[in-house]
């Protein structure tokens, strides 16, 4: 019996939230009445004192209209409890997307607030570890709110408990609730800033005619340039026409880059190695090169494009040495 009574008391819920372990909640979280806590703000307490002072003044000076005004303000404060509560309760909270980021940057966890009720919500704040964003949620709308959370180290960054609160309309009362959507952001190692070049490709492939090109598979023709190797001139084609054409090849063998954990100086720390590798990956992606990654126990085959970069960076982020 006591347990049941406690279950329905806000204090019990509050106790659960504060002192018990709370796991992330998957799916859509409904902010039911029992999840919404409500207390006066500091301004609300001052307002209460002001109303009491006004009441004493009205009694002392027998001001009938003073009573009216005092009681009107008291009613206003009371009604504002309901309004503040209603501004927060019955919202639906669900997880949205979160983009990967580099360690030290701020993750933007996109949280959807959905209002299925027949009235607008105003000035709803979401805060996580001190950073706050505010938003309005109009009738029948789902609004994505980016909740910032600063990352410290690479790996998965789990979204912490998010406080959703509001003081609308009068700021005298604060209603709040805690949610912890099951969201995590992938944090890449921060690329280091050393100005060392990428590891050179193997000497036998040094005659790559252009970046990203190899010698294995024929890929097409283009007009001859003075620096092209004579071995790549399409002589048959040249015989048919009057201009020289150069054969293009795509393949791994040519300027293939391998970013290898083991080629880094042996005295380098784990994180420093990962940072170095991350920079190389970014650099190679920026120049449109093909590259592969070798980590202890894992090897990412050579490729290019954004998928390759994401794959490599993910391996780096989740590397456990």
């Amino acid at each position, binding site marked *: 019996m006591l347990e049941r009574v406690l279950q329905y008391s806000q204090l019990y819920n509050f106790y659960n939230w504060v002192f018990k372990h709370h796991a992330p909640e998957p799916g859509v979280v*409904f902010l039911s009445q029992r999840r919404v806590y409500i207390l006066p703000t500091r*301004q609300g307490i*001052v*307002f209460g004192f*002001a109303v009491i*002072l*006004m009441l*004493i*003044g*009205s*009694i*002392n*000076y*027998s*001001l*009938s*209209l*003073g*009573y*009216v*005004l*005092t*009681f*009107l*303000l*008291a*009613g*206003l404060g*009371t*009604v*504002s409890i*309901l*309004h503040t509560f*209603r501004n927060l*309760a*019955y919202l639906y909270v669900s997880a949205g997307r979160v983009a990967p980021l580099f360690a030290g940057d701020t993750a933007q966890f996109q949280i*959807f607030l959905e209002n*299925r*009720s*027949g*009235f607008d919500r*105003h*000035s709803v704040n979401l805060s996580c570890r001190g950073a706050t964003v505010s938003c*309005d949620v*109009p*009738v*029948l*709308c*789902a*609004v*994505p709110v980016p909740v910032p959370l600063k990352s410290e180290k690479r790996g998965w960054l789990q979204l912490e408990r998010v406080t959703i609160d509001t*003081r*609308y*309309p*009068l*700021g005298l009362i604060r209603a709040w609730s805690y949610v912890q959507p099951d969201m995590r952001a992938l944090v890449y190692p921060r690329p280091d800033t050393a100005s060392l070049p990428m590891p050179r490709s193997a000497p036998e492939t040094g005659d790559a005619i252009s970046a990203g090109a190899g010698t294995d598979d024929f890929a097409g023709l283009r007009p001859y340039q003075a620096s092209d190797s004579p071995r790549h001139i399409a002589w048959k084609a040249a015989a048919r026409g009057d201009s020289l054409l150069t054969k293009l090849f795509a393949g791994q063998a040519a300027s293939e880059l391998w970013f290898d954990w083991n080629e880094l100086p042996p005295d380098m720390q784990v994180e420093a190695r990962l940072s170095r590798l991350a920079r190389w990956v970014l650099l190679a992606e920026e120049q449109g090169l093909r590259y592969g990654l070798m980590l202890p126990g894992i090897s990412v085959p050579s490729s290019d494009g954004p998928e390759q970069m994401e794959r490599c960076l993910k391996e780096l982020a989740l590397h456990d040495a």
Partner: protein
Amino acid sequence: MTPSALPLPHLLWLLTGMALAVAPHTLWLPWWVSATVATLFLWRAWLARKQTALPARWVVVVLTVANVAGVYFSYRTIFGRDPGVTLLVVLLALKMMETRTHRDLYVMVFLAYFIALAHFFYSQTIPTAVLTLVTVLATTSALVGINAPARPIADNLKTSGWMLIQAGPIMLLLFFLFPRVQGPLWGVPQDAFSGLTGLSDTMSPGTISQLSQSDAIAFRVKFEGASPPRNQLYWRGPVFWDFDGRTWRPGPVNFLRDIQYESSGTPLDYEVTLEPHNRDWLFALEMPARVPSAGRLTRDYQLLSLQPVRARIRYTLSSYPNYRATGGAGPRELAAALALPPEFNPRARALAREWRRTLDSDAAIVRQAISFIRGAGLEYTLLPPLLGRHSVDEFLFDTRQGFCEHFASSFVFLLRAAGVPARIVTGYQGGDLNPIDGYMVVRQSDAHAWTEVWLAGNGWMRVDPTAAAVPVRVESGITAAAPRGASLTLLTGANIGWLRAMRYNWDALANQWNQRVLGYNPDRQREMLSWLGVPQPDWQTMAMMLFWGVAGVLLATALWLVRGIRRDDPVQRAWLRFCDKLRRAGLARASTEGPLDYASRVTGRLPSRAGTVRAIAELYVDLRYGPRSDRHSVSRLRHLVRDFRP
């Protein structure tokens, strides 16, 4: 959020709310305070428009010190009601100059509420109430603006208006059921009730004629039956015994154990609603037959309240217009009623000695004095000339122009000099019956002074020398008695029909306001509760009634507020309804079928509905899995589904 994030319109609106709260106070504030506050308001608004930085803190500190010093020098104190309110106004204006944090904005709003309340010290009329309501509405909407800076002001006004409407029932419950205590809780400052007009506790030439310029209401009377004729409407107030040659003062106060006079005829029953006048007099028609519970009767038939009347009070009385007042005539009292200061008014003394020598009885002397006053060619005027040392002589024989206090003072002087005990009674004479609500209104301009003469066998007899000299004063009121051109206030003098009718209507409305709203006091509360069936309410009962009442109102408000709550998903509901309609048409969705597949299957079977079906499915997919939904798409989906006929 910092207040700099408060958008300009919201800031200006907040300032408007503050200005509304302060504005009515400029009617009584020292001119320099009004000027300073107005300047600060304009300065602040200009700074806000220019987006310029606020003045440095030291500037505000210097201004504060200067203004507090100014208030001190204006009032010679900073304590008390008026200096207190002045300081509040000044502090609000200075607070505007340092709205640096969010907290400062709240402080401003709360100060504005206080200042709005403080205005009730000076006025509690209907227009004041309306103005205060407007002020609270504006200020509260500014408070909403602080918390929702992105919304337009009109929306915030609507929100605060709704909230005030919802606060109304709670206000009414608290107003009627909150256990009322008669104030004050402690000694209020001396100046708390200054500015109340009314009779004075002394009488010298000019005191009453000054009062007659005032149109303010002294009290209202509701007679049980028909109201008595005008010449019987003598509302008895302070009685004066001691004369020092210029000023009349009351005698020692002795209370009567029980009422001593002989009465005849039927009594008049009536209820008086007395405006506060900060004295302890309760005005009653001569002669009161009953003493109200909060009052006492003195030996000279003054009805006194136990405390000074500082709030509007109501009491019921009955009076006998025909009476013989034989009480309060001990030897010491009769001696006091004969005392005169020597070496004043030698001509009047000589005349009185002459009467005493030639006439054989006191009654004959009184008759002689009345006919003398009537025949002396005395003129009744609101602007009597100034009198010198021998005020009675100069009035009777030289200037011959005076107001009722001159008549009464001279008459009593003559009688005392002739050896007939006499005293002065002040109060009000007459009253104006409002045909709208049947209340008789007695105004300060009805203030009057008359006399009472002791005749052995008759007791204290009322003699009104003004009525003797100028009968029209008592028959028709002061408007008729005062000569043309004398400066009476507009409305007292008004005989224009529509103006009079308007005034009656307004008076009736103001009276209802006074009786029901302003006059709601512990007694009225008890009456109302016993009418509700709670005959002996103690504070616990009232607290319980209040608690359940407020709880009920809050529950109703809460239900009203959350009526728009829906737990199910409108998109999902619309989609299921769509599927249901198709199922009844024999096209049930397979459990593994996605919306778009389902739609294409349905389109194949119902080619005539292809467009709608595809639109619904695409909208559903868009709303369900798209980046965000908006209310228009949702309502479009609902409409499409509703109008869909397979």
